[in-house]
Protein backbone atom coordinates (compact mmCIF):
# COMPACT_ATOMS: atom_id res chain seq x y z
CA UNK A 1 0.00 0.00 0.00
CA UNK A 2 2.81 2.38 0.92
CA UNK A 3 4.64 1.48 -2.27
CA UNK A 4 1.52 2.25 -4.34
CA UNK A 5 1.25 5.59 -2.52
CA UNK A 6 4.87 6.36 -3.38
CA UNK A 7 4.14 5.63 -7.05
CA UNK A 8 1.15 7.99 -6.84
CA UNK A 9 3.32 10.72 -5.30
CA UNK A 10 5.84 10.15 -8.07
CA UNK A 11 2.95 10.61 -10.53
CA UNK A 12 2.04 13.95 -8.95
CA UNK A 13 5.66 15.11 -9.14
CA UNK A 14 5.90 14.00 -12.76
CA UNK A 15 2.60 15.83 -13.40
CA UNK A 16 4.15 18.99 -11.98
CA UNK A 17 7.05 18.64 -14.40
CA UNK A 18 4.64 18.07 -17.33
CA UNK A 19 2.70 21.17 -16.23
CA UNK A 20 5.85 23.32 -16.23
CA UNK A 21 6.91 21.96 -19.62
CA UNK A 22 3.44 22.69 -21.10
CA UNK A 23 3.38 26.26 -19.76
CA UNK A 24 6.94 27.07 -20.81
CA UNK A 25 6.75 25.45 -24.24
CA UNK A 26 3.34 26.78 -25.28
CA UNK A 27 4.66 30.11 -26.66
CA UNK A 28 7.25 28.18 -28.70
CA UNK A 29 4.89 25.55 -30.09
CA UNK A 30 1.82 27.64 -30.93
CA UNK A 31 1.11 27.83 -34.67
CA UNK A 32 -1.49 30.62 -34.64
CA UNK A 33 -0.16 33.58 -32.69
CA UNK A 34 -0.87 37.29 -32.58
CA UNK A 35 2.03 37.77 -34.98
CA UNK A 36 0.60 35.37 -37.60
CA UNK A 37 -2.83 36.98 -37.25
CA UNK A 38 -1.41 40.45 -37.88
CA UNK A 39 1.03 39.42 -40.61
CA UNK A 40 -1.75 39.07 -43.17
CA UNK A 41 -2.78 42.71 -42.79
CA UNK A 42 -0.01 43.96 -45.11
CA UNK A 43 0.88 46.76 -42.69
CA UNK A 44 4.61 47.02 -43.48
CA UNK A 45 5.70 50.62 -42.95
CA UNK A 46 2.18 51.99 -43.16
CA UNK A 47 -0.85 52.40 -40.94
CA UNK A 48 -3.66 49.94 -41.58
CA UNK A 49 -7.03 50.66 -39.98
CA UNK A 50 -8.66 47.50 -38.65
CA UNK A 51 -12.30 46.92 -39.63
CA UNK A 52 -14.82 47.69 -36.86
CA UNK A 53 -16.33 44.98 -34.71
CA UNK A 54 -19.65 43.65 -36.02
CA UNK A 55 -22.25 42.00 -33.77
CA UNK A 56 -22.47 38.27 -34.34
CA UNK A 57 -19.14 38.12 -36.18
CA UNK A 58 -15.90 36.60 -34.83
CA UNK A 59 -13.52 39.05 -33.16
CA UNK A 60 -10.29 37.05 -32.78
CA UNK A 61 -8.17 40.08 -31.86
CA UNK A 62 -10.68 40.96 -29.10
CA UNK A 63 -11.06 44.53 -30.32
CA UNK A 64 -13.10 47.03 -28.35
CA UNK A 65 -16.10 48.12 -30.53
CA UNK A 66 -15.80 51.69 -29.22
CA UNK A 67 -12.23 52.16 -30.44
CA UNK A 68 -10.45 52.61 -33.76
CA UNK A 69 -7.30 50.55 -34.24
CA UNK A 70 -4.38 51.50 -36.47
CA UNK A 71 -1.57 48.98 -36.94
CA UNK A 72 1.88 49.41 -38.46
CA UNK A 73 4.57 46.76 -38.82
CA UNK A 74 8.18 47.87 -38.55
CA UNK A 75 11.50 46.10 -38.89
CA UNK A 76 14.42 47.77 -37.11
CA UNK A 77 16.89 45.68 -39.12
CA UNK A 78 16.18 48.14 -41.96
CA UNK A 79 16.97 51.10 -39.70
CA UNK A 80 15.28 53.06 -36.93
CA UNK A 81 11.54 53.42 -37.27
CA UNK A 82 9.45 56.54 -36.86
CA UNK A 83 5.84 57.40 -36.30
CA UNK A 84 4.74 60.93 -36.91
CA UNK A 85 1.37 62.59 -37.05
CA UNK A 86 -1.32 64.57 -35.35
CA UNK A 87 -4.29 62.78 -33.89
CA UNK A 88 -7.76 64.18 -33.13
CA UNK A 89 -8.46 65.66 -29.74
CA UNK A 90 -9.61 62.49 -27.98
CA UNK A 91 -8.13 59.70 -25.92
CA UNK A 92 -5.54 57.66 -27.78
CA UNK A 93 -2.90 55.19 -26.73
CA UNK A 94 0.03 53.48 -28.35
CA UNK A 95 1.50 50.03 -27.76
CA UNK A 96 4.48 48.28 -29.30
CA UNK A 97 4.16 44.49 -29.61
CA UNK A 98 7.04 42.11 -30.25
CA UNK A 99 6.75 38.89 -32.22
CA UNK A 100 5.74 36.98 -29.06
CA UNK A 101 2.65 39.19 -28.69
CA UNK A 102 4.09 40.93 -25.62
CA UNK A 103 3.61 44.67 -25.16
CA UNK A 104 7.14 46.02 -24.78
CA UNK A 105 6.16 49.69 -24.58
CA UNK A 106 2.89 51.55 -24.08
CA UNK A 107 1.79 55.11 -23.46
CA UNK A 108 -1.30 57.29 -23.74
CA UNK A 109 -1.92 60.90 -24.73
CA UNK A 110 -2.66 61.55 -21.03
CA UNK A 111 1.09 61.34 -20.39
CA UNK A 112 1.52 64.94 -21.53
CA UNK A 113 1.87 64.24 -25.27
CA UNK A 114 -1.46 65.79 -26.27
CA UNK A 115 -2.45 65.39 -29.89
CA UNK A 116 1.03 65.20 -31.42
CA UNK A 117 2.55 61.79 -32.00
CA UNK A 118 6.31 61.81 -32.62
CA UNK A 119 7.90 58.47 -31.88
CA UNK A 120 11.31 57.01 -32.69
CA UNK A 121 11.91 53.29 -32.20
CA UNK A 122 15.49 52.04 -32.03
CA UNK A 123 17.16 48.73 -31.26
CA UNK A 124 20.06 48.54 -28.79
CA UNK A 125 22.80 49.23 -31.37
CA UNK A 126 20.91 52.19 -32.86
CA UNK A 127 20.28 53.63 -29.40
CA UNK A 128 24.02 53.39 -28.65
CA UNK A 129 24.81 55.22 -31.89
CA UNK A 130 22.21 57.86 -31.06
CA UNK A 131 23.78 58.38 -27.65
CA UNK A 132 27.29 58.61 -29.13
CA UNK A 133 26.23 61.31 -31.57
CA UNK A 134 24.86 63.36 -28.67
CA UNK A 135 22.03 64.76 -30.78
CA UNK A 136 19.54 67.10 -29.24
CA UNK A 137 16.24 65.29 -28.93
CA UNK A 138 13.33 67.54 -29.85
CA UNK A 139 10.85 68.18 -27.07
CA UNK A 140 7.89 65.86 -27.27
CA UNK A 141 9.75 63.19 -29.28
CA UNK A 142 9.36 59.80 -27.67
CA UNK A 143 12.49 57.66 -27.98
CA UNK A 144 11.86 53.97 -27.42
CA UNK A 145 14.51 51.28 -27.27
CA UNK A 146 13.20 47.91 -28.43
CA UNK A 147 14.75 44.58 -27.52
CA UNK A 148 13.83 42.95 -30.85
CA UNK A 149 13.75 44.14 -34.46
CA UNK A 150 10.38 42.91 -35.70
CA UNK A 151 7.56 44.89 -34.09
CA UNK A 152 3.96 45.94 -34.46
CA UNK A 153 2.87 49.39 -33.34
CA UNK A 154 -0.80 49.62 -32.42
CA UNK A 155 -2.61 52.94 -31.94
CA UNK A 156 -5.98 52.91 -30.22
CA UNK A 157 -8.13 55.97 -30.79
CA UNK A 158 -11.42 56.59 -28.97
CA UNK A 159 -13.86 58.80 -30.91
CA UNK A 160 -16.30 60.46 -28.47
CA UNK A 161 -19.29 59.52 -30.67
CA UNK A 162 -19.91 56.91 -33.35
CA UNK A 163 -20.74 59.62 -35.90
CA UNK A 164 -17.12 60.86 -35.63
CA UNK A 165 -15.68 57.46 -36.49
CA UNK A 166 -15.08 58.00 -40.26
CA UNK A 167 -13.29 61.33 -39.66
CA UNK A 168 -11.17 59.87 -36.86
CA UNK A 169 -10.29 56.86 -39.02
CA UNK A 170 -9.17 59.20 -41.81
CA UNK A 171 -7.05 61.22 -39.35
CA UNK A 172 -5.44 58.08 -37.95
CA UNK A 173 -4.70 56.76 -41.44
CA UNK A 174 -2.66 59.91 -42.13
CA UNK A 175 -0.09 59.03 -39.46
CA UNK A 176 3.26 58.29 -41.08
CA UNK A 177 4.98 55.11 -40.00
CA UNK A 178 8.00 53.01 -40.90
CA UNK A 179 11.56 53.42 -42.10
CA UNK A 180 10.71 55.44 -45.18
CA UNK A 181 8.57 58.45 -46.03
CA UNK A 182 9.00 59.91 -42.60
CA UNK A 183 10.21 63.36 -41.64
CA UNK A 184 13.98 63.82 -41.42
Amino acid at each position, binding site marked *: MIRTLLWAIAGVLL*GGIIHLVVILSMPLLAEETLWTRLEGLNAENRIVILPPVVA*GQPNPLELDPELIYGICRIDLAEGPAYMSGRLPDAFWSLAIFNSAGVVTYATTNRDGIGQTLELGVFNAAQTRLLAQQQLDIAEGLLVVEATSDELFVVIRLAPPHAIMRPRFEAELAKVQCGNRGTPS
Partner: protein
Amino acid sequence: MRFVFRLLLMCVIALGVGFGLSYYALTDGRMFTVSQLGPWTAWPDVGAPNPNPYTRAHLTREAALQLGQAEGLHLVASVDSAGEPLSRNCTYRLEGRTPQATFWTLVATDPAGVNVAVPDGPLALRSTGIVRENDGSLRIHVGTRLAPGNWLELAGEGPFTLGLTLYDTAVFTGFGATGDTMPAIVREACA
Protein backbone atom coordinates in the same frame (compact mmCIF):
# COMPACT_ATOMS: atom_id res chain seq x y z
CA MET B 1 1.67 -7.37 -12.75
CA ARG B 2 1.59 -5.10 -9.74
CA PHE B 3 4.51 -3.14 -11.16
CA VAL B 4 2.63 -2.53 -14.43
CA PHE B 5 -0.44 -1.42 -12.49
CA ARG B 6 1.60 1.04 -10.44
CA LEU B 7 3.36 2.33 -13.54
CA LEU B 8 0.02 2.88 -15.27
CA LEU B 9 -1.34 4.59 -12.16
CA MET B 10 1.66 6.92 -12.05
CA CYS B 11 1.28 7.77 -15.76
CA VAL B 12 -2.44 8.49 -15.41
CA ILE B 13 -1.86 10.71 -12.38
CA ALA B 14 1.06 12.49 -14.08
CA LEU B 15 -0.90 13.21 -17.28
CA GLY B 16 -4.02 14.22 -15.36
CA VAL B 17 -2.14 16.54 -13.03
CA GLY B 18 0.13 17.92 -15.77
CA PHE B 19 -2.44 18.76 -18.42
CA GLY B 20 -5.32 19.38 -16.00
CA LEU B 21 -3.31 21.89 -14.01
CA SER B 22 -2.17 23.60 -17.22
CA TYR B 23 -5.74 23.88 -18.49
CA TYR B 24 -6.88 25.27 -15.15
CA ALA B 25 -4.00 27.75 -15.00
CA LEU B 26 -4.86 29.18 -18.42
CA THR B 27 -8.66 29.25 -18.04
CA ASP B 28 -9.55 29.98 -14.42
CA GLY B 29 -6.09 30.49 -13.01
CA ARG B 30 -7.08 32.14 -9.73
CA MET B 31 -4.53 30.05 -7.84
CA PHE B 32 -1.80 31.22 -10.18
CA THR B 33 -1.67 34.79 -11.50
CA VAL B 34 -5.26 35.80 -12.17
CA SER B 35 -6.60 38.52 -9.85
CA GLN B 36 -10.21 38.56 -8.74
CA LEU B 37 -12.42 41.48 -7.70
CA GLY B 38 -15.86 40.05 -6.91
CA PRO B 39 -17.07 38.26 -10.06
CA TRP B 40 -14.48 40.08 -12.20
CA THR B 41 -11.12 38.55 -13.08
CA ALA B 42 -8.08 40.01 -14.79
CA TRP B 43 -4.53 39.12 -15.73
CA PRO B 44 -2.70 42.11 -14.21
CA ASP B 45 0.62 41.09 -15.77
CA VAL B 46 -0.78 40.84 -19.30
CA GLY B 47 0.48 44.23 -20.49
CA ALA B 48 3.87 44.05 -18.78
CA PRO B 49 7.06 44.02 -20.86
CA ASN B 50 8.28 40.90 -19.01
CA PRO B 51 5.20 38.82 -18.16
CA ASN B 52 5.54 35.71 -16.04
CA PRO B 53 5.43 32.29 -17.81
CA TYR B 54 1.72 31.76 -17.07
CA THR B 55 0.78 35.13 -18.52
CA ARG B 56 3.04 34.46 -21.48
CA ALA B 57 1.21 31.18 -22.13
CA HIS B 58 -2.12 33.00 -21.73
CA LEU B 59 -1.01 35.62 -24.27
CA THR B 60 -0.14 32.85 -26.72
CA ARG B 61 -3.45 31.09 -26.14
CA GLU B 62 -5.51 34.26 -26.63
CA ALA B 63 -3.42 35.72 -29.51
CA ALA B 64 -5.31 39.00 -29.06
CA LEU B 65 -4.34 42.67 -28.97
CA GLN B 66 -3.86 43.07 -25.23
CA LEU B 67 -3.63 46.43 -23.51
CA GLY B 68 -0.24 47.63 -22.32
CA GLN B 69 0.03 48.40 -18.62
CA ALA B 70 0.06 52.14 -19.31
CA GLU B 71 -3.05 51.86 -21.51
CA GLY B 72 -5.44 50.14 -19.16
CA LEU B 73 -6.80 46.82 -17.98
CA HIS B 74 -9.42 44.39 -19.27
CA LEU B 75 -11.58 42.58 -16.71
CA VAL B 76 -13.89 39.70 -17.47
CA ALA B 77 -16.89 38.21 -15.66
CA SER B 78 -18.51 34.93 -16.66
CA VAL B 79 -20.46 34.55 -13.41
CA ASP B 80 -22.65 36.91 -11.40
CA SER B 81 -21.91 38.06 -7.86
CA ALA B 82 -23.62 34.94 -6.48
CA GLY B 83 -21.32 32.72 -8.54
CA GLU B 84 -23.97 31.62 -11.06
CA PRO B 85 -22.92 31.53 -14.74
CA LEU B 86 -24.19 34.47 -16.82
CA SER B 87 -26.98 33.45 -19.18
CA ARG B 88 -28.94 35.37 -21.80
CA ASN B 89 -32.10 33.73 -20.41
CA CYS B 90 -31.76 36.10 -17.45
CA THR B 91 -31.44 39.85 -17.01
CA TYR B 92 -28.70 41.33 -14.86
CA ARG B 93 -28.08 44.58 -13.06
CA LEU B 94 -24.61 46.04 -12.60
CA GLU B 95 -24.42 48.39 -9.68
CA GLY B 96 -21.66 50.07 -7.76
CA ARG B 97 -18.53 51.89 -8.82
CA THR B 98 -15.60 51.25 -11.07
CA PRO B 99 -11.95 51.97 -10.25
CA GLN B 100 -10.56 55.31 -11.33
CA ALA B 101 -10.03 55.46 -15.10
CA THR B 102 -10.20 58.01 -17.91
CA PHE B 103 -13.12 56.01 -19.32
CA TRP B 104 -14.35 52.45 -19.54
CA THR B 105 -16.34 50.31 -21.95
CA LEU B 106 -18.62 47.35 -21.26
CA VAL B 107 -19.18 44.60 -23.83
CA ALA B 108 -20.95 41.24 -23.82
CA THR B 109 -19.54 38.31 -25.77
CA ASP B 110 -20.30 34.63 -26.09
CA PRO B 111 -17.69 32.01 -25.06
CA ALA B 112 -16.17 32.22 -28.58
CA GLY B 113 -15.61 35.98 -28.22
CA VAL B 114 -18.43 37.01 -30.58
CA ASN B 115 -20.19 40.24 -29.58
CA VAL B 116 -23.77 39.31 -28.59
CA ALA B 117 -25.32 42.80 -28.52
CA VAL B 118 -28.27 43.39 -30.85
CA PRO B 119 -26.94 44.17 -34.36
CA ASP B 120 -28.86 47.45 -34.71
CA GLY B 121 -28.00 48.74 -31.23
CA PRO B 122 -24.83 49.82 -29.46
CA LEU B 123 -22.21 47.06 -29.33
CA ALA B 124 -20.82 48.45 -26.09
CA LEU B 125 -21.63 50.90 -23.33
CA ARG B 126 -19.15 53.63 -22.51
CA SER B 127 -18.75 55.45 -19.21
CA THR B 128 -19.21 58.84 -20.90
CA GLY B 129 -22.60 57.82 -22.32
CA ILE B 130 -24.41 56.45 -19.29
CA VAL B 131 -26.73 58.06 -16.78
CA ARG B 132 -25.48 57.85 -13.20
CA GLU B 133 -27.26 57.74 -9.86
CA ASN B 134 -27.32 60.85 -7.65
CA ASP B 135 -24.33 59.59 -5.65
CA GLY B 136 -22.30 59.03 -8.82
CA SER B 137 -22.59 55.24 -8.78
CA LEU B 138 -23.71 53.36 -11.86
CA ARG B 139 -26.65 51.11 -12.56
CA ILE B 140 -26.65 49.21 -15.83
CA HIS B 141 -29.11 46.60 -17.04
CA VAL B 142 -27.85 43.80 -19.26
CA GLY B 143 -30.10 41.33 -21.01
CA THR B 144 -32.41 40.56 -23.89
CA ARG B 145 -35.52 42.04 -22.27
CA LEU B 146 -36.44 45.74 -22.24
CA ALA B 147 -35.01 47.56 -19.22
CA PRO B 148 -35.12 51.16 -18.00
CA GLY B 149 -32.12 53.51 -17.79
CA ASN B 150 -28.79 52.24 -19.05
CA TRP B 151 -29.41 49.05 -21.00
CA LEU B 152 -26.97 46.85 -22.88
CA GLU B 153 -29.39 44.99 -25.10
CA LEU B 154 -28.35 41.46 -25.96
CA ALA B 155 -29.55 39.06 -28.65
CA GLY B 156 -29.87 35.28 -28.78
CA GLU B 157 -29.60 32.84 -25.93
CA GLY B 158 -26.98 30.84 -24.07
CA PRO B 159 -24.06 31.76 -21.85
CA PHE B 160 -22.20 35.03 -22.18
CA THR B 161 -19.31 36.92 -20.69
CA LEU B 162 -19.05 40.57 -19.68
CA GLY B 163 -15.86 42.45 -20.44
CA LEU B 164 -15.12 45.73 -18.72
CA THR B 165 -12.11 47.60 -20.09
CA LEU B 166 -10.68 50.41 -17.99
CA TYR B 167 -8.55 52.84 -19.99
CA ASP B 168 -5.76 54.78 -18.32
CA THR B 169 -6.50 53.26 -14.95
CA ALA B 170 -4.70 52.92 -11.62
CA VAL B 171 -6.33 49.61 -10.68
CA PHE B 172 -4.00 47.07 -9.00
CA THR B 173 -1.43 49.79 -8.42
CA GLY B 174 -2.66 50.75 -4.95
CA PHE B 175 -3.30 54.30 -6.13
CA GLY B 176 -6.63 55.90 -7.00
CA ALA B 177 -9.34 57.48 -4.88
CA THR B 178 -11.97 54.79 -5.42
CA GLY B 179 -9.72 51.82 -4.70
CA ASP B 180 -10.06 48.51 -6.44
CA THR B 181 -13.85 48.21 -6.26
CA MET B 182 -15.84 46.76 -9.10
CA PRO B 183 -19.58 46.83 -9.76
CA ALA B 184 -21.62 43.90 -8.48
CA ILE B 185 -23.52 41.78 -11.02
CA VAL B 186 -26.98 41.02 -9.65
CA ARG B 187 -29.25 38.53 -11.38
CA GLU B 188 -32.85 39.65 -11.85
CA ALA B 189 -35.60 37.72 -13.63
CA CYS B 190 -34.95 34.59 -15.68
CA ALA B 191 -37.10 33.16 -18.47
